[in-house]
């Protein structure tokens, strides 16, 4: 190939990758909803659980605390912030204790007689009115007169006030300067329900920005501090920490990699060429995921690039076999069967994730398989013509020669492999501890100090529990509301017994139509009401004529149709009812949020007696889901392990060779799993992915070692390649193992340990059996 044609090839390659990369960058949407890495729901129950985990009112709740030296400033800021947040559109509900009766639209005022339960036990007759009016006279002589007086002509029974009081949380924080404060009186508290789902870090990030800007604009004092807590705030925090650390460790490992490759090959062009298959793999993988799924999850991206890092090894094998006078094209033809076996078997292993039933893993699978295939093919067909002549021959290195000689003298402890396998399998089978970690949260743990703070704020605010939730389902809104109303007194009993701090349910804000109609029917007609009022007024100092607005309101209420969920638009009730009463297709769901659950069993008993009512334990349910999901993944992995053996067998066609190639990765996997278990580490999905990656690496090392021909120079070149490959991989993952975040550490430790173990075992068990020719030397 001429110089010009080589240049053309290089430019065309780079241009293709760049254009594809540009298209991918423009078209691909990056998703961040963590539930993509949870199993796809199979039953309606699972669907509900997955929805509630990320979208239930509790998971959307942000607890806010404004603290500073001056409580009055904190209170003023709380009011301004609440107003700004309500206007921002990012929040469904913002509560800070302000009860503003003026916020109720005029059109809904008359509905107080249909919404308030007062008249269920009393009629608007002369006796009831007299008691009420006498009380009002006393109110007028009390310090409360100022704010009650304007309401009296319209609402002498103070129905609206009772209604507003009943809408307040059962146990609300103390009011200071008319807004919620913690019990020490130093921090103003707010509870805000975000529109973004709790496990959508991207949406929560945007919400957090809006919150911060609103706070900066509302603060009345430079010394004030805003804290926010809750699932949404945590998911933003953890995503930032994970990204920050992954980026930092990634940059360090890139530098290490560059130095390593420069030391190994002493050539900048080789370094640059070595990157081309990897970059092509990444771009092709993204394009494939984009085409099939439309979006790619942020985690898929992060993991995917870690997994296809293996592709960096492919050109290394080629480079290590270069020497003066050898055309890379003939060299690659010799390497290709081994390389192809490695690529094909690794791809087969990753195919398992395609059938895992988890969308995020399916994406990961498509990304990795496409990427590795592209890296393999470009290394085979595009790279060789571009490889510059090398004056260095790895085989000429005296150091490598001595190393290989020493290795040749190593024992081949096959019995040790068998013994280790038996020991590991027996240990794992007999250990009583669970092998797996089912708690997804354990991998991105929120710092304990923040969790303690969250629990304290949650208690102060009486905010709903993030773990337990009662769910009521039926075919229409009326039925679920009726069930919720029916459940209410039973929950009240639990509260009275101290088993529960509080609860919230939609019928508290929106009674059933039946209840409203019953109350409406109980309202007296104008003549009856007027005579009852006159009779009641007889003994009070009130002027009789002032209560005309009251008479008009009651008469108006008598003509009102009962309120339904759709009539609440624009009222303060809309958002409250909206988050507790959900319509999903032809199914209606009422959620009963619970605060301070002290006895889940008692709740479960109450739920069991109510038809269509379930107590969801989101933690337990998600762990069950994770366990079921893992079972499925393990089965797929088992199938792909069989396929992998078939691929290797087809390539090598010799049982003893197949055994020697598969022994290191099998042993490594077993030993790592056993060591983790012995160290008390529970395995997670991420360990599993890392184990598959380590197994893929081990297979490659073994394949190349096994292939090493009987020519000692060729053996040394193979040793050189495998050392460079394993060192570079070890470097990257050992750095990850230093991470403070368990998810990164899990992957780092697993793969780094896997690289070491695979390398050593490949040397011990896989290196070629000295044939008669080598024997003679």
């Amino acid at each position: 190939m001429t110089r010009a044609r080589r240049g053309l090839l290089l430019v065309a390659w780079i241009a293709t990758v760049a254009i594809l990369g540009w298209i991918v960058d423009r078209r691909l949407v990056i998703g961040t909803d963590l539930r993509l890495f949870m199993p796809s729901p199979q039953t309606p129950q699972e669907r509900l659980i997955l929805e509630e985990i990320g979208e239930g009112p509790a998971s959307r709740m942000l607890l806010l605390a404004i603290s500073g030296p001056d409580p009055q400033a904190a209170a003023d800021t709380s009011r301004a912030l609440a107003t700004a947040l309500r206007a921002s559109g990012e929040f469904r509900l913002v509560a800070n204790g302000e009860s503003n009766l003026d916020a109720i639209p005029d059109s809904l005022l008359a509905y107080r007689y249909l919404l308030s339960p007062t008249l269920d036990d009393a009629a608007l007759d002369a006796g009831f009115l007299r008691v009420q009016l006498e009380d009002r006279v006393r109110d007028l002589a009390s310090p409360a007169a100022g704010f009650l007086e304007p309401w009296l002509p319209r609402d002498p029974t103070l129905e609206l006030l009772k209604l507003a009081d009943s809408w307040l949380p059962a146990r609300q924080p103390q009011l200071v300067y008319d807004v919620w404060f913690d019990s020490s009186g130093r921090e103003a508290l707010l509870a805000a329900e975000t529109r973004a789902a709790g496990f959508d870090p991207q949406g929560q990030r945007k919400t957090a920005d809006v919150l911060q800007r609103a706070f900066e604009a509302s603060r009345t004092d430079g010394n004030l501090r805003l804290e926010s807590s809750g699932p949404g705030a945590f998911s933003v925090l953890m995503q930032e920490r994970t990204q920050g650390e992954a980026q930092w460790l990634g940059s360090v490992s890139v530098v290490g990699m560059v130095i390593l490759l420069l030391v190994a090959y002493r050539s900048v062009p080789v370094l640059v060429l070595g990157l081309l298959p990897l970059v092509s793999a990444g771009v092709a993988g993204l394009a494939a995921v984009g085409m099939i799924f439309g979006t790619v999850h942020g985690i898929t991206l992060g993991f995917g690039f870690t997994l296809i890092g293996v592709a960096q090894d492919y050109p290394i094998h080629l480079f290590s076999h270069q020497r003066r006078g050898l055309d890379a094209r003939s060299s690659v033809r010799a390497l290709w069967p081994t390389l192809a076996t490695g690529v094909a078997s690794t791809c087969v292993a990753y195919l398992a994730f395609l059938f895992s039933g988890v969308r995020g893993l399916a994406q990961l699978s498509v990304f990795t398989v496409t990427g590795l295939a592209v890296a393999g093919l470009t290394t085979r067909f595009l790279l060789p013509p571009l490889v510059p002549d090398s004056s260095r021959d790895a085989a000429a290195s005296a150091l490598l020669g001595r190393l290989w000689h020493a290795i040749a003298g190593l024992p081949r402890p096959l019995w040790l492999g068998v013994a280790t396998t038996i020991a590991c399998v027996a240990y794992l089978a007999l250990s009583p501890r669970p092998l797996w970690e089912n708690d997804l949260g354990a991998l991105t743990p929120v710092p304990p100090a923040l969790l303690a703070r969250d629990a304290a704020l949650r208690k102060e605010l009486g905010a709903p529990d993030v773990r337990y939730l009662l769910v009521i389902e039926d075919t229409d809104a009326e039925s679920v509301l009726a069930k919720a109303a029916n459940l209410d007194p039973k929950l009240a009993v639990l509260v009275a017994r101290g088993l529960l701090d509080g609860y919230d349910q939609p019928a508290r804000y929106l009674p059933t139509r039946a209840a409203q109609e019953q109350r409406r029917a109980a309202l007296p007609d104008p003549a009856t009401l007027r005579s009852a009022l006159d009779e009641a007024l007889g003994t009070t100092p009130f002027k009789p004529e002032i209560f005309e607005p009251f008479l008009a309101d009651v008469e108006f209420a008598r003509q009102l149709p009962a309120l339904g969920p759709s009539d609440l638009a624009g009222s303060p009730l809309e958002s409250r009812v909206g988050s507790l009463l959900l319509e999903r297709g032809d199914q209606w769901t009422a959620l009963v949020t619970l605060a301070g659950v002290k006895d889940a069993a008692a709740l479960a008993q109450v739920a069991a007696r109510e038809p269509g009512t379930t107590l969801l334990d989101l933690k337990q349910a998600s762990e069950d889901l994770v366990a079921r999901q893992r079972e499925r993944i393990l089965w797929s992995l088992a199938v792909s392990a069989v396929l992998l053996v078939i691929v290797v067998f087809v390539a090598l066609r010799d049982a003893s060779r197949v055994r020697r190639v598969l022994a290191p990765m099998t042993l490594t996997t077993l030993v790592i799993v056993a060591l983790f278990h012995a160290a008390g580490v529970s395995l997670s999905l991420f360990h599993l992915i890392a184990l598959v990656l380590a197994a893929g690496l081990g297979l490659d090392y073994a394949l190349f070692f096994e292939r090493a021909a009987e020519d000692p120079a060729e053996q040394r070149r193979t040793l050189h390649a495998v050392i460079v490959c394993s060192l570079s991989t070890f470097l990257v993952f050992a750095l990850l193992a230093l991470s403070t975040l368990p998810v990164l550490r899990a992957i780092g430790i697993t793969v780094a340990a896997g690289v070491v173990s695979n390398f050593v075992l490949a040397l011990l068990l896989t290196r070629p059996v000295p044939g008669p020719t080598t024997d003679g030397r």
Partner: protein
Amino acid sequence: MEVRYSSLLEKPIVVSGRLEHREDSSLVRRVEWPYQEVTVLQGENVSVERAGSKPRRFTLDRAPELRGMLASFGAILQGDRLLLDRYFDVTAQGSDSRWEITLTPRNDKLKRHLFRVVVVGTEDRPRCFTLEEPDGDGSLMALGVTGPEALPASLDRDVLHAWCTDGDGQ
């Protein structure tokens, strides 16, 4: 004694009771006649509790006229001219033995709820606090007077004001 005027009422309401300063700096307004009621004002929080019903709690932000009343009351009883000047324009008339101070709120928010406070006193003792609200409602508190029989027969404001000024019933 406290007399409360309201446009909703045909005749004013009269209650009688006591004011106490507690050690924890809260102020307690205790109604003893014709019914029992206890109001506790502590810091910004107010709670009103009547026998047989649940306490009603609110903060001074909801009752600005009460805040004005408390400020004038506290300042006059303690002779704190600075505090008085912070909230009110002060005009005084009469002699040392029989005086009348008129307090007009300075800030707009208070002005919307409180027209003025008139305090009538003799020598070093205030006798009556009269609160006048912009809508014509208001109240009169006579200190040191117990029992409705001490008040004049007519509860007309002018009559009561004259009664306070003249020192009848003392």
